[in-house]
């Protein structure tokens, strides 16, 4: 194996790839079996089973953004590039999960209420988070200079995280006065629904961890390659 400039985060990520992968495979199987076997909801019918994937995806999306902000904060504090790898990786994986939340939500809404969109509090907050994620990634793309991009993104990540609880209260306020009388009711989990939901949450978090580990690994490799190219007298020849 080639020598790669290493840090604890990069090494930790590489070490986690295999165990999370195996755990994911096992859990995913158990989860899908549990979902298939779960009893039908008396009110919503089979459509309710989306509940075992949609909120779990949201857990991962929010965990992702928390990590993005945390990674950015540590990067600003410590200056270690590895923290920025974490932040950037968490943002990319997180935006994937966030997109899936925003996609599966309307699928559930359409199946339950016959409408694709509703300004439901949680769905709206996730939509706003999605925009923040996207702005974060665009900011990174459009800033010239790696170090500056990392710094800018770190500040934005922290601001974006701070706004999530603010949005929660803000939308709660708006919901109270809004003209929209319908509110998607969170169906209470009845008997036999605990396991598929808990497994769903675990699967999504482990999937997030696995993808995050792989993404950090890729970032470390990219960084090593860029360093090699910068130090070489001539550029590398790519096949």
């Amino acid at each position: 194996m080639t020598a790669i400039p290493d840090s604890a985060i990069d090494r930790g990520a590489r070490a986690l790839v295999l165990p999370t992968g195996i755990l994911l495979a096992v859990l995913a199987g158990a989860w899908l079996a549990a979902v298939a076997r779960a009893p039908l909801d008396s009110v919503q019918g089979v459509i309710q089973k989306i509940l075992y994937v949609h909120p779990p995806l949201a857990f991962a999306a929010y965990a992702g953004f928390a990590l993005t902000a945390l990674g950015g904060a540590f990067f600003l504090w410590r200056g270690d590039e590895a923290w920025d790898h974490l932040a950037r990786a968490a943002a990319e994986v997180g935006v994937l999960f966030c997109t899936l939340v925003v996609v599966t939500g309307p699928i559930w809404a359409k199946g339950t209420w016959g409408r694709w969109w509703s300004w439901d509090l949680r769905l709206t907050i996730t939509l706003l988070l999605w925009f923040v994620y996207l702005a974060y990634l665009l900011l990174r793309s459009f800033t010239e200079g790696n170090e500056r991009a990392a710094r800018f993104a770190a500040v934005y990540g922290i601001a974006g995280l701070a706004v999530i609880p603010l949005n929660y209260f803000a939308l709660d306020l708006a919901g109270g006065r809004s003209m929209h009388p319908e509110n998607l009711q969170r169906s209470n989990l009845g008997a036999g629904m605990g396991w598929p939901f808990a497994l769903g949450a675990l699967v999504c978090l482990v999937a997030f961890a696995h993808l995050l580990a792989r993404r950090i690994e890729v970032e470390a490799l990219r960084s090593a390659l860029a360093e090699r190219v910068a130090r070489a007298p001539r550029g590398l020849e790519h096949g």
Partner: protein
Amino acid sequence: MNTLLAILWKDLVSEWRSRDRVVAMALFSFLVVIVLHFALPDVDPVEVRRLAPGLLWVAYVFAALLGLNRAFALELENEALSALAMAPADRGFVFLGKAAANFVLLAVVQFATAVVFGLAFALDLVPVAVPLAGVVALGSLGICSVGTLFSAVAVRTRYREVMLPLLILPLLVPVLLGAVSATAALLQGESLPSASIQLLVVTDAVFLIVSFLGFDYVLDE
């Protein structure tokens, strides 16, 4: 503290000399108001009173974005961004000075826009002028704090005019929701809802702290 006042004074004086930013913001804001007026079909006064708060803040946000986009333009053109970074005092005060200047300019434009808005939509804003000014000030505080911070960021990106709204609009949702709901209450003749004011105050505090601390990392040249 002196840095704050120095930067504030410098920005306001340079704006007073050319007045281009304020005039542009004001004209744009008036145009938005007029367009919004035409965008609404003939609605009865009760409907208008319901929709007005949101529309007013749409105009305010547009004006703010225009002004904030230009906040660091002068420094960028004259390669003075690094000079800001080298200021011996805490860079946080540079931020406060810049944000204060933006706030003052925005306030001037907001006042003029309110007058035009009242005329365009046949609303008498005079009875609620003082509490309205307070609500608008709280809203502008939130807008100008993160707006100034990320204006310094956006000015160093490609597509900078697009980058700023993209960055701050999701962040401004709590400010706008609080401001609009408070404005709505005022226009309906009710008293200010405490929940809205609390939201605005908390959001402003959070944004000010984050922007004050974050500006340090954004100016490093």
